[in-house]
């Protein structure tokens, strides 16, 4: 076998070529694996097209900005961060495929992504199987606490319940009749179950609650808005709690404006409508309608002002808005960086163990803390829509509210608690003292 090579090496020119080729191969061999460890890859799993693109595209942009800012500070563990962006196109099974692609093919150390709960439920098995980390930045329905997921968005006790409390209060209008309108998937259905139980506990009769679901992208709101007006004319103050998601909100608010439903008569509080969704609407007919979030762009604080300036410079658009899920990514990313530095490695198990207890600044002031149940502490704000598409804060919680994964108002979940630090369980039953497992 070596005879032809030796014969070739005997000839001077061929020998030189052989040595050069061998040297190159050796060098490439050395450089190859070293190159693969040069950057830490961060996956970004947000819909850039389809019905949810209106909400999710800006989250991809803020992640790119955070990665750029971190690289300017020297990266992480001495390496540069590299963003890997994929587009699951508002297609829920595609979310799972793209998550698998990010983890196995692109070898990302962490994924920041998802918006709708159905997209999150689709990717859960992938993250469990491949043992990676997902930071989920959006308010959701609770009833979940997974080892591989960190929930930087609001649980129902950090958004939905305070919003209903506000509407029941004097300032909110002392609502006695409730319309719960949502898009037809797991988040609105579960949140409405929790809210129905909560309202009944507060003494609201079944006949004073109207629940309604529409498909994603629904555009013909005439009947539903007319039904809301009819329901609201029973002589009792009526309020609407909206869990409508995506671009269906645009024709919904347009129809509210066209049919003359004013916020002073029937206020609508939305959980998935922020500055980004209002950006394409004429908000003058919507004056006074409400949203419940843990962050508003209009809140004045030094940290928030710096962030908004950096953001508008990064996007080269002085009118670009910021919103709550963006802040959740800012907090989540800061916590992940701190945990990786504390653990000294990007190994998912070590980072997962290092995350509970980390603190990161809220953009509105104060520090947010990662809890053992993988939720964080957040302030709650109720804001009213202004004519310029921003929100005026009309109420806020006195301090930070810790996220509760298992709602105390539902029979199946009030006995459950999540604790990944001491109990190492996401659904530990306090009554039977047993871990439910996954």
């Amino acid at each position: 076998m070596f005879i032809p090579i030796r014969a070739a090496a005997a000839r001077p020119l061929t020998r030189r070529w052989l040595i050069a080729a061998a040297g190159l191969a050796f060098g490439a061999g050395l450089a190859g694996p070293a190159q693969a460890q040069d950057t830490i890859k961060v996956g970004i799993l947000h819909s850039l097209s389809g019905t949810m693109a209106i909400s999710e595209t800006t989250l991809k942009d803020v992640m790119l900005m955070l990665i750029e800012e971190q690289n300017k500070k020297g990266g992480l563990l001495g390496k540069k961060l590299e963003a890997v962006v994929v587009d699951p196109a508002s297609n829920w099974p595609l979310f799972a495929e793209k998550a698998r692609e990010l983890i196995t093919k692109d070898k990302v150390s962490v994924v920041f992504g998802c918006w709708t709960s159905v997209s999150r439920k689709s990717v859960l098995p992938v993250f469990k199987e491949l043992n990676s980390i997902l930071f989920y930045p959006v308010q959701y329905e609770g009833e979940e606490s997974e080892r591989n997921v960190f929930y930087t968005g609001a649980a129902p006790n950090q958004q939905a319940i305070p919003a209903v409390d506000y509407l029941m209060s004097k300032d909110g209008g002392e609502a006695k009749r409730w319309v719960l309108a949502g898009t037809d998937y797991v988040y609105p259905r579960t949140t409405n179950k929790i809210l129905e139980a909560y309202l009944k506990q507060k003494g609201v009769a079944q006949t004073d609650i109207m629940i309604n679901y529409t498909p994603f992208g629904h555009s013909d709101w005439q009947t539903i808005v007319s039904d809301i007006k009819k329901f609201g004319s029973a002589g009792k103050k009526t309020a609407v709690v909206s869990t409508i998601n995506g671009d269906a909100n645009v024709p919904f608010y347009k129809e509210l404006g066209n049919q003359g439903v004013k916020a002073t008569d029937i206020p609508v509080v939305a959980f998935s409508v922020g500055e980004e969704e209002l950006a394409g609407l004429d908000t003058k007919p919507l004056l006074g309608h409400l949203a419940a979030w843990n962050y508003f762009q209009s809140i004045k604080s030094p940290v928030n002002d710096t962030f908004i300036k950096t953001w508008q410079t990064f996007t080269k658009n002085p009118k670009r808005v910021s919103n709550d899920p963006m802040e959740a990514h800012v907090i989540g990313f800061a916590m992940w960086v701190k945990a990786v530095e504390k653990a000294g490695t990007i190994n998912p198990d070590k980072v997962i163990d290092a995350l509970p207890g980390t603190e990161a600044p809220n953009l509105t002031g104060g520090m947010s803390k990662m809890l053992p149940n993988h939720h964080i502490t957040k302030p709650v704000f109720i804001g009213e829509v202004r004519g310029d598409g921003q929100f005026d804060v009309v109420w806020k919680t006195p301090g930070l509210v810790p996220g509760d994964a298992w709602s105390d108002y539902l029979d199946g979940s009030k006995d459950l608690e999540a604790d990944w630090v001491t109990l190492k369980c996401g659904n530990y039953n306090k009554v039977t003292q047993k871990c439910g497992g996954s």
Partner: protein
Amino acid sequence: MRAFCERLLALVVALSVLCVAASAARADAYDDALAHFLADSFDETIEGINAVVASGHPLAEKVIEALQAGRLLFSAEQKRVFFKDEGDRLVDAASGAPSPAAAPADLAPVRLNNRLRRIIEAALGGLTLMSPNPAKRLEAAQAVFKSKDANALPALDQAIAKETVARIKRALTEAHAAVILYLDSASQADKIDAVAVMRDRGDQDALAVLRGLPADTPPTVKQLAADAVAAIERTLALWETVQNAWYGISLGSVLLLAAIGLAITFGVMGVINMAHGEMVMLGAYTTFVVQEVIRTRYPGLFDYSLFIATPLAFLIAGFVGVLIERGIIQFLYGRPLETLLATWGLSLILQQVVRTAFGPTNKDVGNPSWMSGSFDLGHITVTYNRLWIVLFTLLVFALLLALLRYTRLGLEMRAVTQNRAMAASMGIRTGWIDAMTFGLGSGIAGIAGVALSQIDNVSPNLGQGYIIDSFMVVVFGGVGNLWGTLVGAFTLGIANKFLEPFAGAVLGKIAILVMIILFIQKRPRGLFALKGRAVEA
């Protein structure tokens, strides 16, 4: 005589001293009231509003109006309250004179929330009941109707006595009745009269008033109110049927607009065009581009943007349609499955082209001013955008019918639909007619896109939402027949809207689809099938 003059003088002096004292007291009360606005607290602002109204100061109305419009400002440092008048000048609220000095650095608007807005509406109602402006008087009457503020009763009585415009007088009487029904001290006879007034008004607001009567209302009044509620509910139930029919017509017109182009291409050529939705999408994007150009270069033309966009959308979508026909479809005649696949692939390509050119997110297409808002017809609400779309659809349909009936092109199209071979033998260029038909169908889809951009989100996926509905309408109504499409579209729209209040949006749609499947089992050709020997060919 002299004593008389002295007494007269004393009286005059005393009166003027009283007046000055009264206005000083009023001014004091007013200044104290204004001080409440400096606290930047919602509760303090409410006290301020009530105090300003109670002070009766001539500037009270202006201050409350400025507060409602977000033009009331305060400076915590200088402890002064200002407001901006119509000319955007800063006016000192205490004196009413324009502020001579420059605006204080910490000038901030007095904040509002919904509860404050309701209190302001009620307060303004009470203040402006006798305003010289009739529109303001009507608004005031409606505001008092909502607030049922007993303090406005004397002003209401005065206003009713002086009012000359019949509509406003009726509104004032109804407001008076609403206040009486919620007033403990009102007599039973007054309350009975008030119930009769509410029953005459007979709309949702009257229902709300009658249903929410306080618990200590006398039983006779309660009984009368219950009877009135039942009567109003019966009337409103009838009107609700009319309202649902209107919603059904507006939904049907949207379906018709989207489907009519498909009826022509499917009917004339038997081609299943899965890219039809993308023609609609192209029309919507044409509207967006036209509006962008107008926004940047000729902002005054915004209200005419749709008139400019419609012919452009027709030409662009029609041109693309002709290209599709000449480039792809003409090679696939007689092979329906291949046409279906090819046009499906084409729809994906078109979506991606638009996504690459314009971006994947929704585009903001604005409504011209004449498309916003609504008006009341009897007891139903008619929104302007839907009204114009219904009228527009009927116009397009009429023009299309005229084109098919009275033009040569229409004649040749109908000939080719009925018997292609015979038409060719008569010298009609069937290839050319096919291209023109496809272009016409696509052009109409483009026009549909202009209308749909007003009520739906404009995104590359816009067409996907309408392709299924269009096929549904064409199959149900009968292929090749325009009247069939019209009847089919309106039937489906009305059926959907009558089901929706009972079953919800999701189940209603499912029910309609199931109904169509069952209908097709009985009549596979649809409602109005074309009769003819060679229709299948």
